[in-house]
Protein backbone atom coordinates (compact mmCIF):
# COMPACT_ATOMS: atom_id res chain seq x y z
CA UNK A 1 0.00 0.00 0.00
CA UNK A 2 1.28 3.45 -0.80
CA UNK A 3 1.73 5.63 2.21
CA UNK A 4 1.00 9.28 1.83
CA UNK A 5 3.73 11.60 0.71
CA UNK A 6 1.75 14.53 -0.65
CA UNK A 7 -1.79 13.38 -0.22
CA UNK A 8 -4.63 15.70 -1.15
CA UNK A 9 -7.42 16.20 1.34
CA UNK A 10 -10.32 13.96 0.21
CA UNK A 11 -12.75 16.76 1.05
CA UNK A 12 -11.26 19.11 -1.53
CA UNK A 13 -10.86 16.31 -4.07
CA UNK A 14 -14.59 15.68 -3.81
CA UNK A 15 -15.35 19.40 -3.95
CA UNK A 16 -13.26 19.62 -7.13
CA UNK A 17 -15.14 16.73 -8.69
CA UNK A 18 -18.51 18.23 -7.73
CA UNK A 19 -17.57 21.61 -9.21
CA UNK A 20 -16.40 19.91 -12.38
CA UNK A 21 -19.65 17.88 -12.58
CA UNK A 22 -21.76 20.98 -11.97
CA UNK A 23 -20.14 23.27 -14.52
CA UNK A 24 -20.25 20.52 -17.15
CA UNK A 25 -23.91 19.69 -16.56
CA UNK A 26 -26.51 20.89 -19.04
CA UNK A 27 -28.96 21.97 -16.35
CA UNK A 28 -26.37 24.35 -14.92
CA UNK A 29 -25.35 25.70 -18.30
CA UNK A 30 -28.98 26.34 -19.19
CA UNK A 31 -29.65 28.11 -15.91
CA UNK A 32 -26.49 30.21 -16.18
CA UNK A 33 -27.40 31.11 -19.76
CA UNK A 34 -30.83 32.17 -18.61
CA UNK A 35 -29.51 34.22 -15.68
CA UNK A 36 -26.79 35.82 -17.82
CA UNK A 37 -29.20 36.68 -20.59
CA UNK A 38 -31.80 38.23 -18.34
CA UNK A 39 -29.20 40.14 -16.36
CA UNK A 40 -27.64 41.54 -19.49
CA UNK A 41 -31.13 42.36 -20.74
CA UNK A 42 -31.98 44.23 -17.59
CA UNK A 43 -28.63 46.01 -17.74
CA UNK A 44 -29.45 47.10 -21.27
CA UNK A 45 -32.88 48.44 -20.27
CA UNK A 46 -31.29 50.21 -17.33
CA UNK A 47 -28.62 51.86 -19.47
CA UNK A 48 -31.00 52.80 -22.28
CA UNK A 49 -33.03 54.87 -19.85
CA UNK A 50 -30.16 55.97 -17.67
CA UNK A 51 -30.35 59.70 -18.29
CA UNK A 52 -33.95 59.70 -17.04
CA UNK A 53 -32.92 57.68 -14.01
CA UNK A 54 -30.38 60.22 -12.77
CA UNK A 55 -32.45 63.31 -13.57
CA UNK A 56 -34.44 63.43 -10.35
CA UNK A 57 -33.48 65.02 -7.10
CA UNK A 58 -33.83 62.15 -4.66
CA UNK A 59 -31.07 60.97 -2.37
CA UNK A 60 -30.34 57.99 -4.65
CA UNK A 61 -29.44 60.05 -7.69
CA UNK A 62 -25.76 60.30 -6.81
CA UNK A 63 -25.34 56.52 -6.79
CA UNK A 64 -25.01 55.96 -10.52
CA UNK A 65 -23.73 52.42 -10.28
CA UNK A 66 -26.45 51.30 -7.89
CA UNK A 67 -28.98 52.51 -10.46
CA UNK A 68 -27.64 49.91 -12.86
CA UNK A 69 -28.99 47.24 -10.52
CA UNK A 70 -32.29 48.83 -9.60
CA UNK A 71 -33.44 50.97 -12.52
CA UNK A 72 -35.48 49.77 -15.47
CA UNK A 73 -37.19 51.53 -18.36
CA UNK A 74 -40.28 49.40 -17.72
CA UNK A 75 -39.90 47.04 -20.67
CA UNK A 76 -38.05 44.50 -18.51
CA UNK A 77 -37.65 44.04 -14.77
CA UNK A 78 -34.49 45.36 -13.12
CA UNK A 79 -31.46 43.25 -12.24
CA UNK A 80 -32.46 42.69 -8.60
CA UNK A 81 -35.96 41.63 -9.58
CA UNK A 82 -34.49 39.06 -11.94
CA UNK A 83 -32.11 37.74 -9.30
CA UNK A 84 -34.97 37.51 -6.83
CA UNK A 85 -37.02 35.57 -9.41
CA UNK A 86 -34.40 33.32 -11.01
CA UNK A 87 -32.08 32.85 -8.01
CA UNK A 88 -34.34 30.29 -6.31
CA UNK A 89 -34.67 28.33 -9.56
CA UNK A 90 -30.90 28.28 -9.89
CA UNK A 91 -30.55 27.05 -6.29
CA UNK A 92 -33.21 24.37 -6.76
CA UNK A 93 -31.72 23.21 -10.06
CA UNK A 94 -28.32 22.76 -8.43
CA UNK A 95 -29.50 20.74 -5.44
CA UNK A 96 -32.62 18.76 -6.27
CA UNK A 97 -30.76 15.66 -7.51
CA UNK A 98 -27.54 15.97 -5.54
CA UNK A 99 -28.00 12.98 -3.24
CA UNK A 100 -30.88 10.90 -4.62
CA UNK A 101 -29.50 10.67 -8.15
CA UNK A 102 -26.22 9.31 -6.78
CA UNK A 103 -28.10 6.85 -4.65
CA UNK A 104 -30.22 5.71 -7.59
CA UNK A 105 -27.16 5.27 -9.77
CA UNK A 106 -25.38 3.39 -6.97
CA UNK A 107 -22.37 5.71 -7.02
CA UNK A 108 -23.07 6.80 -3.45
CA UNK A 109 -22.15 3.35 -2.17
CA UNK A 110 -19.02 3.40 -4.33
CA UNK A 111 -17.84 6.68 -2.82
CA UNK A 112 -18.75 5.59 0.70
CA UNK A 113 -16.56 2.51 0.27
CA UNK A 114 -13.56 4.88 0.11
CA UNK A 115 -11.82 6.02 3.29
CA UNK A 116 -13.77 9.24 3.73
CA UNK A 117 -16.15 10.55 6.37
CA UNK A 118 -19.75 9.99 5.52
CA UNK A 119 -20.74 13.63 5.98
CA UNK A 120 -18.22 14.62 3.30
CA UNK A 121 -20.85 13.64 0.74
CA UNK A 122 -23.29 16.32 1.86
CA UNK A 123 -20.69 18.88 2.91
CA UNK A 124 -18.82 18.71 -0.39
CA UNK A 125 -21.98 18.99 -2.44
CA UNK A 126 -22.99 22.12 -0.56
CA UNK A 127 -19.50 23.62 -0.61
CA UNK A 128 -19.04 22.98 -4.32
CA UNK A 129 -22.43 24.48 -5.20
CA UNK A 130 -21.71 27.48 -2.99
CA UNK A 131 -18.36 28.04 -4.68
CA UNK A 132 -19.98 27.86 -8.12
CA UNK A 133 -22.81 30.19 -7.04
CA UNK A 134 -20.44 32.66 -5.45
CA UNK A 135 -18.28 32.75 -8.56
CA UNK A 136 -21.34 33.24 -10.72
CA UNK A 137 -22.90 36.06 -8.71
CA UNK A 138 -19.66 37.90 -8.10
CA UNK A 139 -18.81 37.60 -11.78
CA UNK A 140 -22.25 38.91 -12.76
CA UNK A 141 -21.99 41.85 -10.37
CA UNK A 142 -18.53 42.73 -11.63
CA UNK A 143 -19.76 42.36 -15.18
CA UNK A 144 -22.49 44.92 -14.54
CA UNK A 145 -19.92 47.15 -12.80
CA UNK A 146 -17.59 46.80 -15.78
CA UNK A 147 -20.31 47.73 -18.25
CA UNK A 148 -21.25 50.65 -16.05
CA UNK A 149 -17.64 51.78 -15.99
CA UNK A 150 -17.51 51.74 -19.79
CA UNK A 151 -20.85 53.49 -20.13
CA UNK A 152 -20.46 56.12 -17.40
CA UNK A 153 -16.74 56.73 -17.78
CA UNK A 154 -16.25 57.16 -14.03
CA UNK A 155 -15.28 54.57 -11.43
CA UNK A 156 -17.71 53.56 -8.67
CA UNK A 157 -17.20 55.12 -5.23
CA UNK A 158 -16.00 52.89 -2.40
CA UNK A 159 -19.49 53.05 -0.88
CA UNK A 160 -21.09 51.91 -4.14
CA UNK A 161 -18.57 49.14 -4.61
CA UNK A 162 -19.10 47.86 -1.07
CA UNK A 163 -22.88 48.00 -1.44
CA UNK A 164 -22.70 46.03 -4.67
CA UNK A 165 -20.32 43.52 -3.09
CA UNK A 166 -22.61 43.05 -0.07
CA UNK A 167 -25.60 42.79 -2.40
CA UNK A 168 -23.78 39.93 -4.20
CA UNK A 169 -23.14 38.21 -0.86
CA UNK A 170 -26.81 38.54 0.10
CA UNK A 171 -27.79 37.13 -3.31
CA UNK A 172 -25.49 34.16 -2.68
CA UNK A 173 -27.07 33.61 0.76
CA UNK A 174 -30.53 33.79 -0.79
CA UNK A 175 -29.72 31.23 -3.49
CA UNK A 176 -27.93 29.06 -0.88
CA UNK A 177 -31.20 29.07 1.09
CA UNK A 178 -33.01 27.48 -1.88
CA UNK A 179 -30.05 25.26 -2.61
CA UNK A 180 -30.17 23.79 0.89
CA UNK A 181 -33.91 23.35 0.71
CA UNK A 182 -33.51 21.36 -2.51
CA UNK A 183 -30.61 19.34 -1.02
CA UNK A 184 -32.93 18.52 1.88
CA UNK A 185 -35.54 17.27 -0.59
CA UNK A 186 -32.92 15.29 -2.47
CA UNK A 187 -32.05 13.51 0.80
CA UNK A 188 -35.70 13.02 1.75
CA UNK A 189 -37.12 11.85 -1.58
CA UNK A 190 -35.71 8.90 -3.50
CA UNK A 191 -36.94 10.13 -6.89
CA UNK A 192 -35.31 13.20 -8.42
CA UNK A 193 -38.59 14.25 -10.05
CA UNK A 194 -40.29 14.32 -6.65
CA UNK A 195 -37.58 16.44 -5.06
CA UNK A 196 -37.57 18.86 -8.02
CA UNK A 197 -41.33 19.15 -7.85
CA UNK A 198 -41.27 19.73 -4.09
CA UNK A 199 -38.70 22.52 -4.48
CA UNK A 200 -40.56 24.20 -7.32
CA UNK A 201 -43.87 23.90 -5.46
CA UNK A 202 -42.48 25.75 -2.47
CA UNK A 203 -40.95 28.40 -4.73
CA UNK A 204 -44.28 28.83 -6.55
CA UNK A 205 -46.14 28.96 -3.26
CA UNK A 206 -44.00 31.80 -1.96
CA UNK A 207 -43.79 33.60 -5.31
CA UNK A 208 -47.48 33.58 -6.18
CA UNK A 209 -49.79 32.13 -3.57
CA UNK A 210 -48.27 33.41 -0.36
CA UNK A 211 -48.92 37.06 -1.31
CA UNK A 212 -52.52 36.21 -2.17
CA UNK A 213 -52.99 34.44 1.17
CA UNK A 214 -51.49 37.36 3.09
CA UNK A 215 -53.71 39.78 1.15
CA UNK A 216 -56.76 37.73 2.07
CA UNK A 217 -55.72 37.74 5.72
CA UNK A 218 -55.09 41.49 5.52
CA UNK A 219 -58.54 42.09 4.05
CA UNK A 220 -60.19 39.91 6.67
CA UNK A 221 -58.40 41.48 9.59
CA UNK A 222 -58.21 45.08 8.31
CA UNK A 223 -59.25 47.52 11.07
CA UNK A 224 -62.33 49.66 10.56
CA UNK A 225 -61.81 53.17 9.25
CA UNK A 226 -61.97 55.01 12.57
CA UNK A 227 -59.29 53.41 14.70
CA UNK A 228 -56.32 54.91 16.38
CA UNK A 229 -53.08 55.49 14.50
CA UNK A 230 -51.37 53.12 16.87
CA UNK A 231 -53.71 50.28 15.87
CA UNK A 232 -53.16 50.93 12.15
CA UNK A 233 -49.38 50.83 12.64
CA UNK A 234 -49.72 47.63 14.66
CA UNK A 235 -51.84 46.04 11.95
CA UNK A 236 -49.39 47.07 9.21
CA UNK A 237 -46.53 45.68 11.29
CA UNK A 238 -48.40 42.38 11.66
CA UNK A 239 -49.02 42.06 7.92
CA UNK A 240 -45.42 42.97 7.18
CA UNK A 241 -44.20 40.31 9.62
CA UNK A 242 -46.43 37.77 7.89
CA UNK A 243 -44.87 38.77 4.57
CA UNK A 244 -41.44 38.22 6.06
CA UNK A 245 -42.04 34.49 6.29
CA UNK A 246 -41.51 34.63 2.55
CA UNK A 247 -37.75 34.31 1.82
CA UNK A 248 -38.25 36.36 -1.34
CA UNK A 249 -39.59 39.22 0.76
CA UNK A 250 -36.56 39.06 3.05
CA UNK A 251 -34.28 39.17 0.03
CA UNK A 252 -36.17 42.07 -1.54
CA UNK A 253 -36.10 44.04 1.73
CA UNK A 254 -32.37 43.45 2.11
CA UNK A 255 -31.29 44.16 -1.45
CA UNK A 256 -33.55 47.17 -1.95
CA UNK A 257 -32.22 48.75 1.21
CA UNK A 258 -28.64 48.06 0.23
CA UNK A 259 -28.99 49.36 -3.32
CA UNK A 260 -31.25 52.32 -2.49
CA UNK A 261 -29.48 54.24 0.27
CA UNK A 262 -32.47 56.62 0.58
CA UNK A 263 -34.51 53.84 2.25
CA UNK A 264 -34.45 54.63 5.95
CA UNK A 265 -36.93 52.15 7.34
CA UNK A 266 -38.44 48.80 6.45
CA UNK A 267 -41.44 49.07 8.75
CA UNK A 268 -44.46 51.38 8.81
CA UNK A 269 -43.59 54.99 9.68
CA UNK A 270 -45.94 57.59 11.06
CA UNK A 271 -45.94 61.14 9.71
CA UNK A 272 -44.58 62.30 13.06
CA UNK A 273 -41.58 60.03 12.68
CA UNK A 274 -40.72 61.40 9.24
CA UNK A 275 -40.98 65.06 10.19
CA UNK A 276 -37.58 66.61 10.42
CA UNK A 277 -35.81 63.73 8.71
CA UNK A 278 -33.20 65.00 6.25
CA UNK A 279 -33.59 63.26 2.85
CA UNK A 280 -29.98 62.14 2.83
CA UNK A 281 -28.77 58.68 1.88
CA UNK A 282 -28.03 56.33 4.76
CA UNK A 283 -24.40 55.42 5.34
CA UNK A 284 -23.58 51.80 4.49
CA UNK A 285 -23.27 50.84 8.17
CA UNK A 286 -26.80 52.08 8.87
CA UNK A 287 -28.21 50.29 5.81
CA UNK A 288 -26.53 47.12 7.01
CA UNK A 289 -28.07 47.50 10.46
CA UNK A 290 -31.45 47.93 8.81
CA UNK A 291 -31.18 44.69 6.81
CA UNK A 292 -29.37 42.66 9.45
CA UNK A 293 -32.53 40.80 10.64
CA UNK A 294 -33.44 39.87 7.06
CA UNK A 295 -29.97 38.58 6.27
CA UNK A 296 -29.79 36.72 9.58
CA UNK A 297 -33.15 35.08 8.89
CA UNK A 298 -31.97 33.93 5.46
CA UNK A 299 -28.73 32.55 6.90
CA UNK A 300 -30.72 30.92 9.74
CA UNK A 301 -33.06 29.23 7.25
CA UNK A 302 -30.10 28.04 5.19
CA UNK A 303 -28.43 26.53 8.24
CA UNK A 304 -31.70 24.97 9.44
CA UNK A 305 -32.34 23.20 6.14
CA UNK A 306 -28.76 22.01 5.99
CA UNK A 307 -28.95 20.69 9.56
CA UNK A 308 -32.15 18.74 8.79
CA UNK A 309 -30.66 17.33 5.57
CA UNK A 310 -27.47 16.42 7.45
CA UNK A 311 -29.35 14.61 10.21
CA UNK A 312 -31.54 12.71 7.75
CA UNK A 313 -28.54 11.71 5.67
CA UNK A 314 -26.39 10.58 8.58
CA UNK A 315 -29.18 8.46 10.06
CA UNK A 316 -30.11 6.78 6.81
CA UNK A 317 -28.92 3.29 6.03
CA UNK A 318 -27.75 3.34 2.44
CA UNK A 319 -28.13 0.11 0.56
CA UNK A 320 -27.06 -0.25 -3.02
CA UNK A 321 -29.60 -0.92 -5.74
Amino acid at each position, binding site marked *: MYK*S*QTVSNPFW*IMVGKEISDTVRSWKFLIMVGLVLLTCLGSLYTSLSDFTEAIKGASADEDFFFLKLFTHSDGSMPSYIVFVSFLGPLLGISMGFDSVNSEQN*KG*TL*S*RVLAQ*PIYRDYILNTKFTASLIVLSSLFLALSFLVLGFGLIFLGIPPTADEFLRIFIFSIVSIVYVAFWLNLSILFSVKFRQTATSALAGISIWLFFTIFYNIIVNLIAKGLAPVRFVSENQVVKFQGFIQNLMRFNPGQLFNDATTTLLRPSIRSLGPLTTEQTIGAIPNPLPLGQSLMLVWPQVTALIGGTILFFAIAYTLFMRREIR*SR
Partner: protein
Amino acid sequence: MDISVKNVTKMYGTQKALDNLSFEVKTGEILGFLGPNGAGKTTTMKAITCYISPNEGDILLGGTSVAKSPDLVKKSIGYLPESNPLYLDMPVMDYLAFIGELQGVSKEIIEFQVQKMVRICGLNLEKHKKIGELSKGFKQRVGLAQALIHDPEVLILDEPTTGLDPNQIIEIRELIKEIGKEKTVILSSHILAEVEATCDRVLIINKGKIVADGTPESLRKEAQGKEILKVGVNANDRNDVFTSLQQLPEVDLVSFVDDSKLFEIESKVGMSSVESIFRMCVDKGWFLTQLTPVEKNLEDVFRELTK
Protein backbone atom coordinates in the same frame (compact mmCIF):
# COMPACT_ATOMS: atom_id res chain seq x y z
CA MET B 1 -3.54 -9.67 5.02
CA ASP B 2 -5.75 -12.18 6.82
CA ILE B 3 -9.47 -11.63 7.20
CA SER B 4 -11.26 -12.89 10.26
CA VAL B 5 -15.06 -12.72 10.48
CA LYS B 6 -16.14 -13.42 14.04
CA ASN B 7 -19.72 -14.24 15.02
CA VAL B 8 -21.23 -11.57 12.80
CA THR B 9 -24.98 -11.04 12.90
CA LYS B 10 -26.76 -8.46 10.76
CA MET B 11 -30.45 -7.69 10.95
CA TYR B 12 -32.50 -5.83 8.33
CA GLY B 13 -35.54 -4.98 10.40
CA THR B 14 -36.77 -8.35 11.62
CA GLN B 15 -34.97 -10.29 8.89
CA LYS B 16 -31.68 -11.91 9.87
CA ALA B 17 -29.33 -11.44 6.93
CA LEU B 18 -26.28 -12.87 8.70
CA ASP B 19 -26.63 -15.36 11.53
CA ASN B 20 -23.58 -15.65 13.76
CA LEU B 21 -21.29 -15.97 10.74
CA SER B 22 -17.63 -16.87 11.31
CA PHE B 23 -14.83 -17.70 8.89
CA GLU B 24 -11.24 -16.83 8.10
CA VAL B 25 -9.36 -16.09 4.91
CA LYS B 26 -5.60 -16.34 4.72
CA THR B 27 -3.24 -14.06 2.81
CA GLY B 28 -2.87 -15.09 -0.83
CA GLU B 29 -6.04 -17.15 -0.77
CA ILE B 30 -8.87 -16.73 -3.29
CA LEU B 31 -12.11 -17.46 -1.50
CA GLY B 32 -15.24 -18.12 -3.54
CA PHE B 33 -18.45 -17.07 -1.91
CA LEU B 34 -21.45 -19.08 -3.04
CA GLY B 35 -25.07 -18.98 -2.07
CA PRO B 36 -28.55 -18.47 -3.45
CA ASN B 37 -30.01 -14.98 -3.82
CA GLY B 38 -30.60 -13.40 -0.43
CA ALA B 39 -28.22 -15.81 1.32
CA GLY B 40 -26.15 -12.96 2.77
CA LYS B 41 -23.15 -12.87 0.41
CA THR B 42 -23.38 -9.20 -0.45
CA THR B 43 -24.19 -8.27 3.15
CA THR B 44 -21.04 -10.08 4.31
CA MET B 45 -18.97 -8.26 1.70
CA LYS B 46 -20.45 -4.92 2.66
CA ALA B 47 -19.71 -5.61 6.31
CA ILE B 48 -16.08 -6.41 5.47
CA THR B 49 -15.78 -3.22 3.42
CA CYS B 50 -17.15 -1.15 6.35
CA TYR B 51 -20.15 -0.20 4.29
CA ILE B 52 -22.62 -1.53 6.81
CA SER B 53 -22.13 -2.23 10.50
CA PRO B 54 -23.04 -5.63 11.89
CA ASN B 55 -25.45 -5.76 14.85
CA GLU B 56 -23.18 -8.24 16.60
CA GLY B 57 -19.68 -9.59 16.15
CA ASP B 58 -16.60 -8.09 14.61
CA ILE B 59 -14.47 -8.36 11.50
CA LEU B 60 -10.69 -8.10 11.66
CA LEU B 61 -8.43 -7.29 8.73
CA GLY B 62 -4.84 -8.02 9.60
CA GLY B 63 -5.85 -7.75 13.24
CA THR B 64 -7.50 -4.34 12.79
CA SER B 65 -11.16 -4.13 13.71
CA VAL B 66 -13.45 -2.91 10.95
CA ALA B 67 -15.77 -1.34 13.52
CA LYS B 68 -13.00 0.49 15.37
CA SER B 69 -10.81 1.71 12.49
CA PRO B 70 -12.94 1.80 9.34
CA ASP B 71 -10.76 4.41 7.61
CA LEU B 72 -7.62 2.34 8.10
CA VAL B 73 -9.36 -0.79 6.91
CA LYS B 74 -10.89 0.89 3.84
CA LYS B 75 -7.40 1.84 2.67
CA SER B 76 -6.46 -1.85 2.62
CA ILE B 77 -9.53 -2.93 0.66
CA GLY B 78 -10.37 -2.79 -3.01
CA TYR B 79 -14.08 -3.32 -3.54
CA LEU B 80 -16.00 -4.04 -6.71
CA PRO B 81 -19.72 -3.94 -5.86
CA GLU B 82 -22.25 -6.13 -7.61
CA SER B 83 -23.79 -3.49 -9.89
CA ASN B 84 -20.43 -1.78 -10.51
CA PRO B 85 -21.72 1.78 -10.23
CA LEU B 86 -19.52 4.30 -12.03
CA TYR B 87 -19.60 8.00 -12.83
CA LEU B 88 -20.57 7.64 -16.47
CA ASP B 89 -19.76 11.25 -17.41
CA MET B 90 -16.16 10.99 -16.26
CA PRO B 91 -13.31 9.92 -18.53
CA VAL B 92 -11.62 6.66 -17.45
CA MET B 93 -8.33 8.32 -16.49
CA ASP B 94 -10.01 11.08 -14.46
CA TYR B 95 -12.18 8.57 -12.66
CA LEU B 96 -9.27 6.35 -11.69
CA ALA B 97 -7.28 9.38 -10.52
CA PHE B 98 -10.29 10.57 -8.48
CA ILE B 99 -10.71 7.22 -6.70
CA GLY B 100 -6.95 6.93 -6.23
CA GLU B 101 -6.79 10.35 -4.59
CA LEU B 102 -9.70 9.48 -2.31
CA GLN B 103 -7.83 6.34 -1.33
CA GLY B 104 -4.83 8.42 -0.33
CA VAL B 105 -2.50 7.61 -3.21
CA SER B 106 0.11 10.36 -3.15
CA LYS B 107 0.26 12.98 -5.88
CA GLU B 108 3.74 11.84 -6.90
CA ILE B 109 2.63 8.39 -7.96
CA ILE B 110 -1.03 8.82 -8.88
CA GLU B 111 -0.26 9.22 -12.59
CA PHE B 112 2.00 6.17 -12.56
CA GLN B 113 -0.58 4.15 -10.66
CA VAL B 114 -3.39 5.11 -13.07
CA GLN B 115 -1.24 4.13 -16.07
CA LYS B 116 -0.36 0.85 -14.38
CA MET B 117 -4.01 -0.03 -13.79
CA VAL B 118 -4.91 0.95 -17.34
CA ARG B 119 -2.25 -1.48 -18.57
CA ILE B 120 -3.10 -4.32 -16.19
CA CYS B 121 -6.83 -4.12 -16.88
CA GLY B 122 -6.42 -3.74 -20.64
CA LEU B 123 -7.93 -0.27 -20.85
CA ASN B 124 -5.27 1.38 -22.95
CA LEU B 125 -7.42 1.93 -26.04
CA GLU B 126 -10.35 3.20 -23.99
CA LYS B 127 -8.57 5.31 -21.41
CA HIS B 128 -9.59 8.70 -22.82
CA LYS B 129 -13.22 7.77 -23.38
CA LYS B 130 -16.03 8.66 -21.02
CA ILE B 131 -17.07 5.65 -18.93
CA GLY B 132 -20.62 5.90 -20.28
CA GLU B 133 -19.29 5.23 -23.79
CA LEU B 134 -17.66 1.92 -22.83
CA SER B 135 -19.05 -1.58 -23.33
CA LYS B 136 -20.13 -3.57 -20.28
CA GLY B 137 -16.91 -5.58 -20.31
CA PHE B 138 -14.75 -2.47 -20.29
CA LYS B 139 -16.89 -0.89 -17.58
CA GLN B 140 -16.23 -4.00 -15.50
CA ARG B 141 -12.51 -3.55 -16.14
CA VAL B 142 -12.76 0.07 -15.00
CA GLY B 143 -14.48 -1.19 -11.83
CA LEU B 144 -11.66 -3.65 -11.27
CA ALA B 145 -9.04 -0.99 -11.98
CA GLN B 146 -10.59 1.37 -9.43
CA ALA B 147 -10.64 -1.45 -6.87
CA LEU B 148 -6.92 -1.99 -7.45
CA ILE B 149 -5.77 1.61 -7.90
CA HIS B 150 -4.40 1.98 -4.36
CA ASP B 151 -2.71 -1.42 -4.44
CA PRO B 152 -4.91 -2.90 -1.69
CA GLU B 153 -3.97 -6.02 0.22
CA VAL B 154 -7.51 -7.32 0.16
CA LEU B 155 -9.73 -7.46 -2.91
CA ILE B 156 -13.47 -8.00 -2.59
CA LEU B 157 -15.34 -8.70 -5.81
CA ASP B 158 -19.11 -9.08 -5.82
CA GLU B 159 -20.07 -11.06 -8.93
CA PRO B 160 -17.25 -9.62 -11.05
CA THR B 161 -18.17 -11.35 -14.31
CA THR B 162 -21.91 -10.68 -14.39
CA GLY B 163 -23.05 -9.69 -17.86
CA LEU B 164 -19.73 -10.35 -19.59
CA ASP B 165 -19.32 -12.46 -22.71
CA PRO B 166 -17.36 -15.76 -22.46
CA ASN B 167 -14.12 -14.21 -23.72
CA GLN B 168 -14.36 -11.36 -21.25
CA ILE B 169 -15.20 -13.79 -18.44
CA ILE B 170 -12.06 -15.81 -19.14
CA GLU B 171 -9.94 -12.64 -19.28
CA ILE B 172 -11.30 -11.33 -16.00
CA ARG B 173 -10.84 -14.76 -14.36
CA GLU B 174 -7.22 -14.86 -15.45
CA LEU B 175 -6.74 -11.37 -14.10
CA ILE B 176 -8.24 -12.32 -10.74
CA LYS B 177 -6.05 -15.42 -10.54
CA GLU B 178 -3.00 -13.31 -11.27
CA ILE B 179 -3.96 -10.77 -8.60
CA GLY B 180 -4.77 -13.58 -6.15
CA LYS B 181 -1.15 -14.73 -6.15
CA GLU B 182 -0.21 -11.77 -3.97
CA LYS B 183 -3.43 -10.56 -2.41
CA THR B 184 -6.29 -11.91 -0.38
CA VAL B 185 -9.32 -12.14 -2.65
CA ILE B 186 -12.95 -12.81 -1.82
CA LEU B 187 -15.27 -13.17 -4.77
CA SER B 188 -18.92 -14.05 -4.97
CA SER B 189 -20.51 -15.55 -8.01
CA HIS B 190 -23.52 -17.48 -9.19
CA ILE B 191 -21.40 -19.17 -11.83
CA LEU B 192 -20.17 -22.29 -10.07
CA ALA B 193 -17.72 -23.18 -12.82
CA GLU B 194 -16.12 -19.80 -12.33
CA VAL B 195 -15.66 -20.36 -8.60
CA GLU B 196 -14.28 -23.82 -9.30
CA ALA B 197 -11.86 -22.46 -11.88
CA THR B 198 -10.72 -19.42 -9.95
CA CYS B 199 -10.88 -20.11 -6.23
CA ASP B 200 -8.63 -22.00 -3.84
CA ARG B 201 -11.44 -22.39 -1.37
CA VAL B 202 -15.23 -22.28 -1.51
CA LEU B 203 -17.60 -21.11 1.16
CA ILE B 204 -21.28 -21.84 0.66
CA ILE B 205 -23.66 -19.67 2.61
CA ASN B 206 -27.41 -20.11 3.03
CA LYS B 207 -29.84 -18.03 5.10
CA GLY B 208 -26.93 -16.15 6.67
CA LYS B 209 -25.12 -19.30 7.82
CA ILE B 210 -22.16 -21.21 6.44
CA VAL B 211 -23.28 -24.59 5.15
CA ALA B 212 -20.03 -25.72 3.53
CA ASP B 213 -16.39 -24.69 3.66
CA GLY B 214 -13.48 -26.27 1.80
CA THR B 215 -11.70 -26.67 -1.52
CA PRO B 216 -13.95 -27.48 -4.50
CA GLU B 217 -12.39 -30.96 -4.55
CA SER B 218 -13.00 -31.68 -0.86
CA LEU B 219 -16.59 -30.45 -1.10
CA ARG B 220 -17.28 -32.77 -4.00
CA LYS B 221 -15.77 -35.72 -2.15
CA GLU B 222 -17.66 -34.92 0.99
CA ALA B 223 -20.92 -34.83 -0.91
CA GLN B 224 -20.12 -37.95 -2.87
CA GLY B 225 -20.71 -40.52 -0.09
CA LYS B 226 -21.18 -43.61 -2.30
CA GLU B 227 -19.25 -44.57 -5.43
CA ILE B 228 -21.30 -44.18 -8.59
CA LEU B 229 -20.13 -45.75 -11.86
CA LYS B 230 -21.33 -45.63 -15.42
CA VAL B 231 -20.74 -49.03 -17.00
CA GLY B 232 -21.07 -50.03 -20.65
CA VAL B 233 -21.08 -53.76 -21.49
CA ASN B 234 -21.34 -55.14 -25.01
CA ALA B 235 -23.35 -58.36 -24.55
CA ASN B 236 -26.25 -59.96 -26.40
CA ASP B 237 -28.73 -59.82 -23.55
CA ARG B 238 -28.65 -56.64 -21.51
CA ASN B 239 -31.00 -58.15 -18.89
CA ASP B 240 -28.42 -60.85 -18.28
CA VAL B 241 -25.80 -58.14 -17.67
CA PHE B 242 -28.20 -56.31 -15.37
CA THR B 243 -28.77 -59.47 -13.24
CA SER B 244 -25.06 -60.26 -13.07
CA LEU B 245 -24.24 -56.74 -11.93
CA GLN B 246 -26.91 -56.91 -9.24
CA GLN B 247 -25.39 -60.09 -7.87
CA LEU B 248 -21.98 -58.54 -7.24
CA PRO B 249 -21.45 -58.22 -3.45
CA GLU B 250 -20.16 -54.58 -3.62
CA VAL B 251 -23.08 -53.32 -5.72
CA ASP B 252 -26.01 -51.68 -4.00
CA LEU B 253 -28.13 -50.50 -6.93
CA VAL B 254 -28.14 -50.98 -10.70
CA SER B 255 -30.19 -49.02 -13.18
CA PHE B 256 -30.43 -48.81 -16.99
CA VAL B 257 -29.28 -45.64 -18.69
CA ASP B 258 -31.71 -44.88 -21.53
CA ASP B 259 -32.25 -47.81 -23.92
CA SER B 260 -28.56 -48.37 -24.55
CA LYS B 261 -26.20 -50.95 -23.07
CA LEU B 262 -25.19 -48.51 -20.37
CA PHE B 263 -25.83 -49.01 -16.66
CA GLU B 264 -25.46 -46.76 -13.62
CA ILE B 265 -24.18 -48.59 -10.59
CA GLU B 266 -24.21 -47.37 -7.03
CA SER B 267 -21.76 -49.17 -4.77
CA LYS B 268 -22.36 -49.92 -1.13
CA VAL B 269 -21.07 -47.33 1.36
CA GLY B 270 -17.28 -47.46 1.66
CA MET B 271 -16.91 -50.09 -1.09
CA SER B 272 -15.73 -50.01 -4.70
CA SER B 273 -17.22 -52.23 -7.43
CA VAL B 274 -14.66 -51.44 -10.13
CA GLU B 275 -12.55 -54.60 -9.78
CA SER B 276 -15.55 -56.94 -9.47
CA ILE B 277 -17.17 -55.51 -12.60
CA PHE B 278 -13.97 -55.90 -14.56
CA ARG B 279 -13.49 -59.55 -13.39
CA MET B 280 -17.15 -60.33 -14.11
CA CYS B 281 -16.81 -59.14 -17.71
CA VAL B 282 -13.58 -61.15 -18.18
CA ASP B 283 -15.19 -64.29 -16.70
CA LYS B 284 -18.30 -63.98 -18.86
CA GLY B 285 -16.42 -62.96 -22.00
CA TRP B 286 -18.27 -59.66 -22.27
CA PHE B 287 -16.64 -56.64 -23.83
CA LEU B 288 -16.38 -53.74 -21.36
CA THR B 289 -16.92 -50.53 -23.35
CA GLN B 290 -17.09 -48.04 -20.47
CA LEU B 291 -16.25 -47.87 -16.77
CA THR B 292 -16.42 -44.27 -15.62
CA PRO B 293 -16.86 -42.88 -12.12
CA VAL B 294 -19.71 -40.38 -11.94
CA GLU B 295 -18.53 -37.42 -9.89
CA LYS B 296 -20.79 -34.88 -8.27
CA ASN B 297 -19.98 -31.42 -9.46
CA LEU B 298 -20.09 -28.26 -7.40
CA GLU B 299 -23.54 -27.52 -8.75
CA ASP B 300 -24.89 -30.73 -7.20
CA VAL B 301 -23.21 -29.87 -3.92
CA PHE B 302 -24.63 -26.35 -4.06
CA ARG B 303 -28.15 -27.61 -4.80
CA GLU B 304 -28.02 -30.19 -2.04
CA LEU B 305 -26.84 -27.72 0.55
CA THR B 306 -29.05 -24.78 -0.32
CA LYS B 307 -32.38 -26.26 -1.39
